[in-house]
């Protein structure tokens, strides 16, 4: 193993992806969704991933989110190699180090905002008193201190996405991953959510977000563009 040293993760990198490919084997055809991507994201960065439909954005996010394993290549998350872990080990990583925000919010219906936010803490084995206290703090932080006992059906889309963001943050993750977080929201509400993301990033959160919207991407400090499973550009944005 003469390239052992090369396998060490980059210093201070929250995310270190090396020559990662992902091939979906559909029997007769093989779909190469990612054809070798390499990049690092340091702590505190705010990155937007863009690209045409089918370019592999969601595939990449699923890998970054430890929901899937790369076909080849290495992925170091927060200093440890997670590219070959088993399902339950990946679940533990997701629980401790990652927070997800989805396009469709994915809140549990018939369950209060507070209980939704507290859910990751339940799986972390934290007692209910502490769960509720932590979840309440988190809801206040996203500006929903007065909506804790509301169910998703009683909240607006923007409020639901705030609850989802609070849920993503409640376990104090190293990285927050958002796949088209504003895809279901109008532009006004999108701006609010982006402001919240900006605020979180100012507070030191690492955020990676997929979006189709250049305006939304403009809030990030760096944009990685994909095409056909490859990175075609990786730029720092100029903030207006």
């Amino acid at each position, binding site marked *: 193993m003469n390239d052992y040293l090369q396998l060490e993760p980059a210093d201070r990198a929250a995310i270190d992806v090396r020559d990662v490919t992902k091939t979906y084997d559909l029997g007769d055809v093989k779909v190469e969704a990612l054809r070798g991507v390499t990049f690092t994201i340091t702590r505190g960065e705010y990155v937007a991933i863009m690209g045409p439909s089918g370019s592999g954005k969601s595939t990449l996010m*699923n890998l970054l*989110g430890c*929901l*899937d394993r790369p076909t080849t290549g290495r992925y170091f998350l927060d200093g440890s190699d997670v590219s070959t872990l088993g*399902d*339950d080990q990946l*679940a*533990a990583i*997701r*629980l*401790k180090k*990652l927070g*997800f925000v*989805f396009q*469709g919010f*994915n809140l*549990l219906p*018939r369950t209060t905002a507070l209980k939704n936010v507290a*859910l*990751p803490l*339940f*799986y*972390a*084995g934290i*007692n*209910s008193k502490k769960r509720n206290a932590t979840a309440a703090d988190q809801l206040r932080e996203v500006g929903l201190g007065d909506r804790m006992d509301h169910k998703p059906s009683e909240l607006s889309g923007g409020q639901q996405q705030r609850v989802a963001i609070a*849920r993503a943050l409640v*376990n104090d993750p190293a990285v927050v991953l958002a796949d088209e977080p504003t895809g279901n929201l109008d532009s006004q509400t999108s701006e609010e959510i982006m402001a919240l993301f900006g605020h979180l990033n100012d507070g030191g959160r690492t955020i990676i977000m997929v979006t189709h919207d250049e305006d939304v991407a403009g809030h990030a400090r760096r944009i990685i563009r994909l095409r056909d499973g490859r990175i075609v550009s990786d730029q720092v944005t100029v903030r207006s």
Partner: protein
Amino acid sequence: MRLTQYFAEAFAVLAGNKIRTLLTALGLIIGVMAVIAIQVLGAGMSGAIQGILGALSDRTFIVLPNQQQADFTRAAIRLSDLQRAKNEVPNVVDAIPAAPQSLRGRYGHTSRRVTVGAGTDERFAATTPIHYGRKLDPDDIALARHVCVITEKAAVKLGITGDPTGSSLRVGEHRYRIIGVLGKSNEGILPGPVAADVAIPYTTYEREYARSRAIVFVRVLMDDPSKVADTEIAMQNWLKRIKGGRVEYQTFDRKSFSKAIDGIFGAVTFVVALIGAVSLLVAGIGILNIMLVSVAERTREIGLRKAIGATRFQVLLQFFIEALALSAFGCLVGMVLGIAIGAFVNGQFIVKLSGITAPIPWVRSIAIATGFATVVTLAFGTYPAWRAATLDPIEALRYE
């Protein structure tokens, strides 16, 4: 891993879907209820009958020709055979016709149909409590007196109130002086020979009723109850010999009666419990079905739970406990209903009619019903939970 939390959530989910929960649990409720009630009633019923049989004398047995035999007419027993038997078969004190007659009884202005049977003195009779007067005694038998002992039920039927001893009862062509009224217990359930409405000395019975009719079955009175098995065989062999060989007889004593009844109730209880078990099985399939539907409906929820870090085991536990909670609800309701129905029917009918409170194996009945329901749930609840646990989070999250 906080199990109470899982249960709390499971009950919340079930409560959030009341009609579905109730309909799914219904099969389980009915199954558990039926299995418990059937076992309780079976035990109550066979206990009652055993109790009644226990009151029967050990010193008698019944003999009758087999129903299925080539020469049934030749096997028929006549009164003259019986008179010979007591002299020729060892240990036999007497053999008497045991089938009661149905005749018109008149008491005062009341006229009702009553059954008249051949009564023995106390040594050979059931240990029935007596309300008024006395039972038949050896003198009544020896002298073939025109006296009778009636049951309380017959007394009510004939409109008799208070103590009727000394008054006269007309049955068919004859008049008998009432010497006693038997207590209410044991009435009605026993076979005719013991439970006739009106018992007259068997000697009187033979003279007045048996001569003109075929003897359907015979009651044999023995000296030594410990020799019952030998005496039964001797009696059968003796009858075969005097009838000419190619005839068949059967005998029943208290023990073989008791055994036969045990067998019948055991078989009936088993078959009905089996039907209950099948209904529980069907209920289990209902649970399987509804849990699969539930898993499908909540695919996105499962994806979400897995995405935020739930392990396969935690997801498995969630859905498994949901099935368990559903089953617990069904078991509990079924148990309450089963106990209530069992206790009510047993108390109101079986105990009241027989006067005998048999020990009921409550714990065993409940354990069998709920145990089987639990096994069914475990068997059918595991698969949907496993399906949920092994869902791929990415696909689950994309599911519409």
